[in-house]
């Protein structure tokens, strides 16, 4: 093969290539690191388990999106007392292809905490992170959504927050030219979302690197303690494919291996590769969330406008929650509404009058991620990797307070009823019965959760007992092995993580390139 080539699923002879760096995973972290190393003159191989889909390839239906863009058809679940679906993509560009493109700068208090509690003060200084995020914002066209881009569901939330003297702002997104098609989850149909499949990954190719798509990495290869490459086998993304199995590949890395397989994927990959550290796979954290739907007398048309155009951090400190508007495709709405049969159908008939707002909890719960132990369950009951996670009572209490706040905001904005979607609470509530949400059970099985912001399992830190990656950016006890995705973030952020992941990955890559130059 030649450099600057994209290799997708192929059969036939096994092959091997050698470049300066291998990056495993092409999401916001992996692609940010790969593009920076390419700019520094290094040759990079970017290995991605999913397929590379450009704008014309984006599915229109949710079924198509689950099949073509999501990890294991969206069946990845966090298991605990309740089963919580995890929103995670498997495609070139990673979850940045299916998220709402929100870019929020890392709160300074979080960076200070990482400095004092995790020994990262020299690496992730507020000034360095700010510089990286400023550069990224310029590259990815990050901008606050304008009036013309906001949907009515967004504007109603902004109005309700303003009426109640709460902080409110239109979200900043890497989609300056967003046309408000409300289809972020299915991959942007217009190409306005500047996800990595359209930006940084093509840049790696242009700079002479290689992109391997449909190429799940099975193991990192070591010589002694040094990571020298990866190996895996191409996998056809089409489940109806019945031809010969994919070719095996081995990519040798002259300078290092960067793992960016996500908070649910990186730790199992390292464990499969023989890395044994007490903190590996531990400390999985998230921002679990749920929503409240308001029904308005006039049409809201929630599928017109940006998917998530309005946000508030007003209750970040006192309640530990972030409030946001959210568009849910019609295909997913029945799963979110309470009831079944005629009750459900009657609710759905009002879908054009609904606005959905969500509360995301800055949760204290910690879970873990591991490979399925029994080979027969590989790819097993909860997806390829097993995620154990259970929100604590305190987390549920925060969510409950957040949902009650959202319900009251709906009534401030003019809703006639709300649909809280909580087991043990009536399907519909009017203004006089909102207090029932505050009396809802603290059992997490009563709530309809979703996990969309994931952190940890390969945390950065100076203590090998509590972390996986040291402040020197190498995995403890290994050389030339680095982690550059959400899994290396030691705590939750309280804000959307994409921008922080990109900045940390970029700063890691920058330091690697500079160290070599020195």
């Amino acid at each position, binding site marked *: 093969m030649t450099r600057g*080539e*994209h290799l*997708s699923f192929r059969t036939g002879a096994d092959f091997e290539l050698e470049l300066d760096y291998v990056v495993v995973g092409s999401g916001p972290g992996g692609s940010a690191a790969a593009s920076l190393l390419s700019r520094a003159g290094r040759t990079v191989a970017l290995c991605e388990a999913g*397929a*590379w*889909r*450009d704008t*014309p*390839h*984006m*599915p*229109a*239906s*949710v*079924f*198509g999106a*689950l*099949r*073509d863009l999501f990890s*294991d*058809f969206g*069946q990845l679940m966090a298991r605990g007392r*309740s*089963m919580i679906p995890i929103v995670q993509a498997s495609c*070139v560009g990673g979850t940045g292809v299916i998220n709402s493109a929100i870019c929020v700068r890392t709160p300074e208090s979080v960076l200070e905490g990482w400095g004092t509690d995790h020994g990262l003060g020299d690496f992730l200084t507020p000034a360095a992170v700010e510089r990286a995020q400023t550069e990224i914002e310029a590259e990815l066209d990050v901008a606050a959504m304008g009036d013309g881009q906001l949907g009515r569901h967004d504007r109603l939330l902004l109005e309700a927050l303003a009426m109640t003297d709460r902080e409110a702002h239109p979200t900043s997104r890497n989609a300056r030219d967003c046309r408000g098609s409300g289809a972020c989850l299915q991959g942007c149909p217009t190409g306005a979302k500047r996800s990595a499949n359209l930006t940084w990954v093509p840049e790696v190719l242009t700079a002479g690197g290689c992109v391997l*798509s449909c190429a799940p990495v099975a193991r990192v290869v070591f010589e002694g303690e040094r990571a020298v490459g990866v190996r895996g086998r191409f996998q056809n*993304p*089409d*489940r*109806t494919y019945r031809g010969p199995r994919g070719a095996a590949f081995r990519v040798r890395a002259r300078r290092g291996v960067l793992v960016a397989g996500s908070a649910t994927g990186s730790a199992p990959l390292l464990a499969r590769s023989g890395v044994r550290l007490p903190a590996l796979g531990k400390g999985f954290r998230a921002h679990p969330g749920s929503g409240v739907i308001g029904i308005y007398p006039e049409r809201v*048309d929630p*599928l017109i406008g940006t998917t998530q155009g309005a946000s508030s951090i007003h209750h970040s400190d006192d309640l530990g929650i972030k409030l946001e508007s959210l568009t849910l*495709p*019609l*295909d*997913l*709405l*029945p*799963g979110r*509404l*309470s*009831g*079944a*049969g*005629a*009750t*459900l*159908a*009657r609710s*759905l*008939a009002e*879908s*054009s009058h609904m606005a959905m707002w969500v509360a995301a909890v800055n949760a204290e719960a910690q879970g873990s991620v591991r490979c399925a132990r029994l080979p027969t369950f590989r*790819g*097993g*009951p909860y997806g390829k990797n097993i995620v154990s996670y259970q929100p604590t009572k305190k987390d549920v209490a925060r969510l409950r307070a957040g949902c009650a706040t959202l319900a009251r905001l709906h009534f401030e904005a003019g809703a006639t009823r709300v649909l809280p979607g909580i*087991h043990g609470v009536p399907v519909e509530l009017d203004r006089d019965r909102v207090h029932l949400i505050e009396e809802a059970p603290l059992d997490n*099985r009563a709530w309809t959760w979703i996990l969309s912001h994931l952190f940890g399992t390969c945390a950065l830190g100076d203590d090998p007992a509590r972390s996986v990656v040291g402040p020197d950016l190498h995995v403890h006890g290994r050389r030339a092995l680095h982690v550059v995705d959400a899994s290396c973030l030691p705590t939750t952020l309280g804000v959307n993580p994409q921008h922080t992941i990109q900045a940390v990955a970029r700063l890691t890559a920058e330091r690697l390139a500079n160290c070599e130059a020195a």
Partner: protein
Amino acid sequence: MSASVRKRWRRTQVRVLSAILPPTSFVPGIDHERCSDFLARYRREVPFLMQLALNLSVLVFLFSPPLTGAGLRPALALSPVRLERHCAGLARHRIYHLRQATLMLKTVAGLVWGADPAVRDSLGLAPYAEDPRDRRRS
């Protein structure tokens, strides 16, 4: 599983999904023919565990009327009024796993229903374009 058994099972699945999301005077329910085609595609294209989850959920729905107080007969043999009571009872049942089975049925029913051009038209939404099912190959 023989073709005829598979066909009967699919018909049962369609009737269960239709009970979960029936037509109303405001919006159409699940189109049986479209749903049958969708389930054939679902069987071909989704991971085994998702198929298993759907099949188990259908079985739970069929044989749980005694648990919802809707009667002793299988769900599809109930009168329309009792079937409706069964749907509502299962969706808010105190046993978490029964509620989860209903959630699975609602999710699959939603995937069929929400992509139906007739439904989308009735709600003022444009129909979905065909999924391209393609990727960058080189």
